[in-house]
């Protein structure tokens, strides 16, 4: 929405206006603390009860040369008084800490949007670094926007005249001046950020207090001057009653794995090698040792997955977490787990590629890799998380499949939901699925490859159990005995058996649900992180009078049992994907149904409007 310029004016004060939905982007140098600033604004808004969605966007370089376009780091947050599904297509407010941040983000800003710039950084040198020929603050190039020029650095130094910090440390507080201003502009309380600062810098109180002081200075500057003519508020959203927290996808994944460990009674073992954007799962799980979690930063991706397999062999919940390039290295290890039929969770937090690609940007192009990127017939269940909070449930479901069917499972997430945050209605622990399993104990008649009749799973018999000594390995197994066997009929049988085992998972996964009419002209089908943009677009299309249905896949291998029927009930099926049509390829092959792909591979998620426009085109425009 566009922020109104005029509102109700209280005597001698800025006008006040209530808006239902606002998108704010904080942008600066990668050292300017924009991720932290945005996160604080997000958390404060969460505590007010707004619905929210965030989109961090940071460079692959830790500190690209200061003031340059590649060094710009941004954090977008959308807050609303109603249910929202995306971090917003275009910001209403842009905080630009330097010319490069302005230049890199201006094109996304809504017409008549608010720009707050730090004028201290608009020096000839910085303008040149950002590629500006003339100073945009002085020419007419920003006329379409509401520009607020603030000497953030000067004001920060002035606010900290009494502080014992050196100038460099003082200057590092300037993001909190901007945050204080934005808090004022959107009528947010400062308390939760003050609390956070005092805990975070418990051992450096001078830093905490400097930031508190600067943030208050930003707030007061707005309050006592007439810098802004209008002040906004966003009321709480009507969320379902319950207890909420704000959560990032990687955090939800880490907590979900711990929950699965507790609910299954299996100690959690994570083997990992640092890789963007998956490392936060390792970081977070490393802090959960008090839940019996073992984290292992291995020498490489291969060791990480192999150690997880070793842990699973010993009766732990073996997990390995990586991104596309790391998954490629793990392929042989995953296939070993297929052959020895041990539970294993492989998390692929997808990023742009191929090769090193775009490490900090999002993409959904590992789907075919995880389906088929291993030698020979290698059936592996695949499940994809669709939102930050959904990573929690997805972790539990992945573990259920892995332990019930004695199989590696691949869990797909991506950079967008890994780093994005949303409110999460916290579940009751006792409502979580019961994942308890029993290791095989009975030596009588034991064979390592005998099968459960329903699931075809083999027994999980762990070392240390007397009488169950047995050998497993990557060579082809004789059915039942597990002995090495090269017989042609046995191999054919075992290949089909492993495929059938994974196919049978369909028996206990939910059918896919259609949102909207169960049959009709157009179904928009998605998987993974496109859920928000698709939902927003479909809801808007309906509000505009179009008839369109929507469905979203969680389990991708096997597909839900009713998927073929659902596809057949629609004239046209549109699949938006951040790849060149990978799910579409699977659907066409499996169901012989024509699928229309909408591809976007820009390293950025779909906007709601992009999908909306495609729906409008397909449905012949708004009625």
């Amino acid at each position, binding site marked *: 929405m566009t922020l109104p310029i005029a509102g109700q004016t209280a005597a001698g004060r800025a006008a006040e206006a209530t808006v239902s939905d606002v998108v704010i982007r904080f942008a600066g140098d990668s050292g300017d603390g924009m991720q932290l600033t945005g996160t604080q604004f997000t958390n404060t808004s969460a505590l007010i009860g707004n619905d929210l969605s965030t989109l961090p966007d940071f460079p692959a370089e830790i500190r690209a040369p200061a003031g340059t376009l590649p060094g710009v780091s941004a954090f977008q947050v959308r807050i609303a008084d109603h249910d929202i599904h995306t971090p917003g297509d275009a910001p209403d407010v842009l905080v630009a800490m330097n010319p490069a941040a302005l230049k890199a983000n201006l094109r996304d800003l809504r017409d008549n949007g608010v720009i707050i710039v730090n004028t201290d950084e608009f020096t000839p040198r910085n303008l040149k670094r950002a590629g500006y020929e003339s100073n945009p603050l002085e020419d007419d190039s920003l006329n379409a926007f509401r520009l607020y020029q603030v000497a953030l650095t000067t004001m920060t130094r002035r606010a900290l005249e009494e502080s014992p910090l050196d100038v460099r440390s003082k200057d590092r507080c300037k993001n909190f001046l901007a945050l204080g201003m934005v808090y004022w502009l959107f009528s947010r309380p400062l308390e939760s950020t003050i609390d956070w600062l005092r805990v975070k810098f418990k051992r450096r109180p001078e830093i905490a207090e400097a930031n508190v002081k600067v943030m208050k200075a930003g707030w007061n500057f707005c309050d006592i001057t007439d810098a802004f003519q209008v002040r906004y508020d966003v009321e709480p959203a009507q969320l379902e009653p319950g207890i909420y927290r704000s959560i990032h996808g990687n955090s939800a994944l880490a907590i979900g794995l711990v929950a699965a460990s507790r609910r299954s009674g299996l100690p959690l073992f994570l083997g990992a090698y640092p890789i963007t954007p998956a490392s936060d799962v390792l970081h977070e799980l490393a802090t959960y040792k008090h839940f019996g979690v073992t984290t292992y930063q291995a020498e490489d991706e291969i060791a990480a997955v192999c150690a997880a397999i070793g842990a699973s062999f010993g009766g732990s919940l073996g997990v390995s977490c990586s991104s596309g390039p790391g998954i490629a290295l793990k392929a042989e290890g995953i296939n070993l787990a297929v052959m020895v039929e041990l539970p294993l969770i492989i998390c692929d937090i997808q990023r742009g590629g191929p090769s090193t690609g775009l490490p900090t940007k999002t993409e959904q192009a590992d789907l075919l890799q995880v389906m088929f990127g291993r030698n020979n017939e290698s059936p592996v269940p695949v499940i994809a998380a669709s939102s930050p909070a959904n990573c929690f449930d997805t972790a539990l479901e992945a573990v259920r499949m892995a332990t019930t069917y004695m199989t590696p499972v691949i869990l797909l997430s991506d950079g967008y939901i890994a780093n994005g945050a949303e409110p999460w209605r916290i579940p009751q622990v006792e409502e979580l699925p019961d994942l308890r399993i029993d290791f095989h104990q009975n030596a009588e008649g034991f064979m390592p490859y005998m099968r459960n009749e329903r699931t075809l799973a083999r027994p999980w018999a762990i070392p*240390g159990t007397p009488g169950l000594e047995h050998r497993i390995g990557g060579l082809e197994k004789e059915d039942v005995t597990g002995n090495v066997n090269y017989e042609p009929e046995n191999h054919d049988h075992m290949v089909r058996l492993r495929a059938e085992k994974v196919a049978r998972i369909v028996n206990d996964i939910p059918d896919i649900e259609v949102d909207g009419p169960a049959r009709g002209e157009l179904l928009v089908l998605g998987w993974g992180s496109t859920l928000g943009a698709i939902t927003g677009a479909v809801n808007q299309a309906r509000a505009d009078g179009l008839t369109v249905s929507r469905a979203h896949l969680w389990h991708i291998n096997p597909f839900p049992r009713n998927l073929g029927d659902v596809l057949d009930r629609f004239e046209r099926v549109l699949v938006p994907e951040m790849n060149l049509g990978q799910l579409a390829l699977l659907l066409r092959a499996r169901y012989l149904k024509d699928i229309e792909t909408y591809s976007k591979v820009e390293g950025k998620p779909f906007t709601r409007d992009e999908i909306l426009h495609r729906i409008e085109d397909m449905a012949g425009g708004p009625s």
Partner: protein
Amino acid sequence: MPTTEAPALTRKDFQSDQEVRWCPGCGDYAILAAVQQVFPDLGIPREKFVIVSGIGCSSRFPYYMNTYGFHSIHGRAPAVATGLKMTRPDLDVWVVTGDGDALSIGGNHLIHTLRRNVNIKILLFNNRVYGLTKGQYSPTSELGKRTKSTPHGSVDFPFNPLNVAIGSGATFVARSVDVFIPHLKAVLKRAAAHKGSAFVEVMQNCNIYNDKAFAALTDKTGRQQNGLYLEHGKPLVFGDNKDKGLRFTGTDFEVVQLGNGTTADDCLVWDEKHDNPSLAFQMASLSTGDGLGDYPVPLGVLRAIDAPTYDAGVIDQIDQISTTRPQTLDQLIHGTDTWTVDAGGTVHRGAN
């Protein structure tokens, strides 16, 4: 309270029902027999043994041992074993590997496992050739070696496995020979007793692709003339009738003929527990093991030092933090910043 003594284990208890399928005459048979003879004497219940291997002739080893076993993928056995030992410290985990498996494709895992001092035992069967892939040169093949992949002779400078292990910080490094059964068994027992990564190189004859590679050491005269049997606290003497010794000049070892006033007292007394690995490294460098060089082949324990193990460190941290920072799953899921939406739609901070 009555106690029931478990019946003593025998070699037979460790023999699996699988037919052993190494080539007739392969050195692996002797090593298998030695391991099956040593394991019953270690005082460890059979179900606590796990043998993990990679790929190659040696890596078929687990199939022939009636213990838990895992024949994994090429080069990765130390990684599998590390994950297992970290989570199951009660198990006695042995890795069986070869020169290609451990030093070529799996070199990274070997050095990092040794560096961490994971409490596992690694037996490297070194036959200086790729057997299972039918005769290519390996990272321990000597320069000039003619194989299928080096028809004009190898120009690829080899590793000395002992030096790799010592250079990686291994806390136990030893060497024995497939056909030196009593020596091999004694070394295996020492390795079994070591707390931490124990690295044992076993020189092993591949009679198909690299026959007699160690003949100068293993034949009747070579055993005495070319074997230097290290013993902690004993002077370095060797040769027929122990008539030669090794002196340390301060920078190098030199072979001395004993007699004429030169005695064992002039030779270096071997110290496997020396803090500094330099001497063990120099000792390892004396010979690649074939008995063809100017120096004898060091056999036995080169290095055995006490050091904390990685797996114990990991488990200690988990135990300690579990005690000092108890938290329920419910608390974890809630985190620190929550808000509550009540039935009337009112929002307030906190979880009540």
